[in-house]
Each structure stands twice: as C-alpha cells, then as structure tokens.
C-alpha cells in the first residue's frame, strides 16, 4: 500500500478508502471504551494518525482489522489513563451519545412513542455508564466481544494476548458486569 507518499496532496486514494472502511468501527470502539464523545473523537484521531504512520510497516501476520482494533483500544485506554491524571471530568461527559453530540439512529423511535424512547435513551446511557465503570481491559474486551462481535481468536489478536487470557478476562468482566449492570437492569425491570 503506497500510503506514505501522497498525504500532502490530500486525503485520497488508499488513505481515504481505509478511513471510510474503518471510521465507524474505530469510533464506536473508542466511544464505548472511553465512554464519551469528546474522548472518542480524540482517540479516533490518534488511531488514524498511528494507522497511517505505520500502515506501510504492517506485515500481515495478523488480520488487518485486528491490528486496527488494537490501535483503537490502546489509544482509548491511553487517553483515559492520561485524563485520569487530570481533574475530574464533568458529569456531562457521561451522558448518552446523542447528548454528547454523537448521533444514534433509533430506528423504531417513531413507533414506540416519546416516553418509551426517552426511557430507552436513559437505559442505554446507564448501560454505557456501567461498562465505563469496568477496568479499561475488561471494558475493551466487553466492547470487542458484544458490540463488535469479534471471535475469541480475533480478540486475542486485537489485544495481543492469548486465548486463555481472553477467556479468563471475559469471565472476570462478566463478574464485574454482574455488580455494575444488575442494579440498572433491576431498576428498569428488565429480565
């Protein structure tokens, strides 16, 4: 891929294709891992910066998508680590994506009515908050498995770890989710 030679001419060709192909996946992983739109935007930008700088060195020893996920997860975790050292973030950063400036297409909103839609918005924000309370590694594995539907093998590649570690980490993530998510689901009477 001749990505290194032409960035000054604009954002065309291989760069543009790569970006278009991965931007939603990258942003989604960053959003779910960081828990807010502002950090997700920063982490996504960082991800593509790294991706474009290093793409010519990619040796196809793993799936390309796993490599992209790996960069996105690491960028998100690094960003959260850095921001943890800064003063506490505003509570607004934990609002739902739509309140954060991102848009979500709730396809069935028009049939479920405004109250139900509002309730679902609230529930989804609380689910996201519960995920955000997990440790960064558990958060990443939860997002890759259940939002991006990656197999264990793909997750192992993306996180640079073994299958056994994926299994044990996912098991621990479920134990943590049990603590964080069950009260939310109980409150909303969800079975």
């Amino acid at each position: 891929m001749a990505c290194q030679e032409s960035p000054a001419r604009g954002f065309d060709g291989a760069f543009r294709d790569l970006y278009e192909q991965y931007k939603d996946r990258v942003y989604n992983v960053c959003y779910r891992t960081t828990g807010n739109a502002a950090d997700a935007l920063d982490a996504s930008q960082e991800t593509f910066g790294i991706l474009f700088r290093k793409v010519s060195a990619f040796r196809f020893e793993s799936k390309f998508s796993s490599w992209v996920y790996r960069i996105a997860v690491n960028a998100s975790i690094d960003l959260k680590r850095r921001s943890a050292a800064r003063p506490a973030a505003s509570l607004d950063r934990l609002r739902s994506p739509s309140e954060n400036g991102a848009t979500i297409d709730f396809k069935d909103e028009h049939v479920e009515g405004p109250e139900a839609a509002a309730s679902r918005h609230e529930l989804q924000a609380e689910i996201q908050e519960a995920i955000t309370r997990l440790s960064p590694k558990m958060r990443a594995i939860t997002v890759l498995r259940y939002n991006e539907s990656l197999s264990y093998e793909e997750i192992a590649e993306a996180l640079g770890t073994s299958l056994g570690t994926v299994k044990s980490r996912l098991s621990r993530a479920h134990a943590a989710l049990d603590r964080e998510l069950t009260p939310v689901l109980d409150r909303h009477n969800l079975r």
Partner: protein
Amino acid sequence: MNRQSIRDAMIESLAGVTECHAAEGVHIDHDTDGLELLPQTVREHLVENEALHQEWRQLLRQVRAISTLQRVPAPSDLDGRVVASLQAGYRQGRVTEHVQALPSERAPHELDLLVRRLASQPFMEAAADLGDLKAPASLDRLVAVRLSAETSARKPNGLPRTSRLLAAAALLVATSLGLVRLLGDRDAGIANEGLEVALFSFRVVRIEDPTLADSELLGLLGGMSGGMLDGREGSQ
C-alpha cells in the same frame, strides 16, 4: 465438566445473542431463556442445577442489555481532524528529515566555563544566569520553520502545537538546569561518559550513546521528561 468449564462454555455461547441481535434489530425476544444457544452437554447440566441455570440467565441478561447499544457512527468532525493530523504528520516528517540531515553541533568551549560557574551557584541564581549564550542561527531558523508550519495543527488533547513546543522547550530548560546541578555535584568528567551538553537559548542535551551515559544522569533525565529521555528508545 467442572463448574468453571461450564461457565466458560456458557460465556462462549453468548456470542449467539449478538448474532441474533444483528439479525433481528433491537427487538429481541427477552422472554426466552436462550437454552438453545448452549451445547447439549451444558444444557443438561443446567436442567439439573438451578444455580447454574440462574447464572446463565444472568449472563444472558447482561449480554442482551449490552447488545442494545447500537454502533455509534463516527461524527463528521472526525474527517477534518484526521486530514489535519495527517497533513501535520507529513510536515513533521519533513522537519524530522531536515533535523536528521543537520550536522552535529559541538558545545562551544566557553560552555564548560559557564557550566562550572553556574554549578557553583544556588539554583535560582543559576536559572537567572542562563541567557548568556545565543542559539546558533540554524537552530533558530529551524524552530521558526517548525512553529509556523504547525501553528494550525492540533493534537488530540486540543492544544495547539505551539503550546506543546513551548512546553517541550520549558522541559529542556528545566532539564538543563537539573543537569547543571547534577554536574556541579559530580564535578565534571562528563566527556568520557558519552555526554554532550549545549546550553543555548534553547537547551540542547544530547546523549550520543545511552549505554555509556551515567545511570544517575539518565534517571534524572528520564524523571524530568516522564520517560521520554530515559534512553529506552535509544539515543536522544
């Protein structure tokens, strides 16, 4: 099967929930207990063991909830930011190439005298006395080019690059001040340790070979630069 392997099998089977979700949209039938997702052997254990069955229901409930979170599409701002960062990266690459092509600058002889004089002064006085030497014109030009090229580009944290460069310059000054103190304590002998120090209006600290530099000095530089100058990434 022991309890852990049954739990592992249950968790692995949860992938079926997200596949169903992808196929059916947001409306999933939450009334079923999803036993059909499990391998037959695991299902048999669950029929016999209510605690395991309950654990499965809890896992299923978690994943059904998480699966309702739809993919958040990238906002349009991302396009502009990626383009800007790509172009800034390209300019930065050109500057780096330019820097690498520059001949190595030797520290002027009077620097040794200055360092020895500063090292014997209290820290604050030394700090006030550091403006004596001017940077070589080539360095001034290089930094001016770099600043003008990158003023508009922004990093992920939103700070203009000029602010980050100023912070880096401050770091170098601080590093040099620390170095002066350290050299004062150690009383010279630095040339044999692979270290060159140039105190200009920009403070340039160059370690040609980190393996030859004093470990105490590397520790000092590493501490001041948050690991950036600690030699782990080779010569700085």
